[in-house]
């Protein structure tokens, strides 16, 4: 008479909707990601990007500086935007399937601090380069306080992954698929934190 508990999370039961968590990941780490996979056979099953520090990631949350936005396309209009964190750049997209995010981007005036929730996608360009872009679910203007809070949050989450992912299925898979030692991302975390004021 035990409750089915596929994911092994305490206190959760089958059938209760579980929203995919938004991972905290620095731009530099996300940029190194290559592996994009689908869990399950269904067309609507969630897709994940495997982070080099060893966690699957269906959704990301980050805060940074919106430096550039560009409207593209005629009939299928969409926005491209660049959001910068202490380690690099996130490429953000919002198209007609994300009308709310598009309206939000339309109102923003770069440069400004923004918080973004979105889903990462991996693309391969014709010349073989791999690009990661974020399909935006929401982008809101925030203040520097939130940006700094996110850097702490993301640093903590990244260190947790580096220290705890070994031995987990995703952690081991990341070590097989990527040649990068997760430990190298410590330096990135250190440098990101060093930019904050004590």
């Amino acid at each position, binding site marked *: 008479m035990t409750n089915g508990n596929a994911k092994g999370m305490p206190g959760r039961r089958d059938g209760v909707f579980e929203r995919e968590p*938004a991972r905290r990941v620095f731009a530099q780490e996300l940029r190194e990601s290559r592996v994009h996979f689908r869990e399950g056979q269904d067309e609507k099953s969630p897709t994940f990007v495997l982070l080099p520090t060893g966690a699957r990631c269906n959704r990301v949350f980050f805060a940074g500086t919106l430096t550039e936005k560009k409207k593209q396309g005629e009939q299928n209009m969409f926005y491209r935007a660049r959001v910068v964190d202490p380690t690099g750049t996130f490429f953000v997209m919002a198209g007609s399937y994300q009308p709310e995010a598009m309206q939000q981007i339309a109102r923003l005036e770069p440069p400004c601090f923004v*918080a973004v929730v979105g889903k990462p996608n991996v693309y391969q360009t014709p010349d073989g380069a791999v690009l990661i872009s974020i399909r935006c679910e929401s982008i809101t203007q925030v203040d520097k306080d939130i940006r700094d809070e*996110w850097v702490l949050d993301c640093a903590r989450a990244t260190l947790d992954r580096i220290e705890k992912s070994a031995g987990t299925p995703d952690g081991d898979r990341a070590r097989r698929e990527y040649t990068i030692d997760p*430990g190298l991302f410590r330096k990135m*975390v250190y440098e990101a934190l060093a930019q904050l004021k*004590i």
Partner: protein
Amino acid sequence: MDFSHTAERISQKITSHGHSVEKSGIEAKLKRLVEEFGVPPAEAERTVLNEFAREYDIPGFQGSGGGGAGDQKALSLLANGEWVTVECKVVALTAAPSPSIAQTGIVADESAAVRFVVWSRANAPVLEEGKWYRLESAVVDQYKGMLNLKVHSGTTIREVSHEGTLKPTITPIKDLAPGVACIRGKVVQEWEATHDRILQSGMFADETGAIRFVIWKEEGRERLNTGGIYTIYYATVDDFNGRLSLTLNTATTVPEEGDIEVNTGNSLFEGAFVHLSPGSGLVRRCPVEGCNRVLSRQNYCPVHEIQPNYHYDLRIKGWLDNGEETREVLIQRGETEGLVGMSLDQAKELAENNPLGMDEVFLRFREALLGRYLSCRGREIDNRLLVSSCELLHYTPDQLADLLNRAGGSL
């Protein structure tokens, strides 16, 4: 798999009635059922035996296969698929939901309680509430995580005398699992019935947690008093879409004196606000006493239809996310006003003077909340946090040194 023992057993039973059967034929039948059709061995034995019983017109042992009656067991030790013998007391009888069922209810012993079903075809004696019986060769099965004791034609039932009284054990609400349980607690909320057949539904809580309950309309069933303390003996705990709920129709409810400290919920969840759900912001609520449902744009209540005399309210529905887990949060007006810095009156004024109306309030809420870090406390039910207090979290550099040390430790 070797069927020779089972075949031997069947063969002996048939032989004892003066007929002879080919053992290899029995084995072949068993093998076909088990290996080709995936029938459990006990059920295959029963099927084959019944087939011969019909063929030779032998009355009496239909269904008594299954490798014998099994040992006598305490109810707490039952497992799905077993054939068992138990001694237990009928503690509740409920109306049979279908003509193929003669009786349903709950039996209990010192260890546990379990639902039982007596099939009409079993031709079993009528069980009486409050009496002890010995059930030989009953079958245990499982439906939606709940064990059931099935009394079929092969089950022998004998009334037995039993010394001493049965003391049911009270289960804390947080430890409930599908099945039958006794609990003690308080009716903390009563909800509007969502169906004609519901007599009462609401929330029942004890020191450890809360669970929804329902009483279906039935003769002699009475409502519980909101705020009242009750001991509930032998309620059925169902699992519906992953949520547990109590059905009290099988239960005996005994009002108790005094009061208990119920768990008002003090779960804490901190994370970023990543999604504002539709239905947040300024809403109109149904004015019918005890309803309070949010009306649709056309002032339509799902239960009370068009309600022009609605009242306004503010609320937040959305998702908090800490990077590992997510919680749906529901925040009521008091805390909402503080979080977004907008009072109900300001929100009404904004909606009245703006071409987007109530949508404008939603948009302002979204801009004020998304991406912010919140700390919320409240009662947690499933993945949902009913927030009683919350605050915005701000950047505090005191963790910075620790994190720098962690990151720089091995550089």
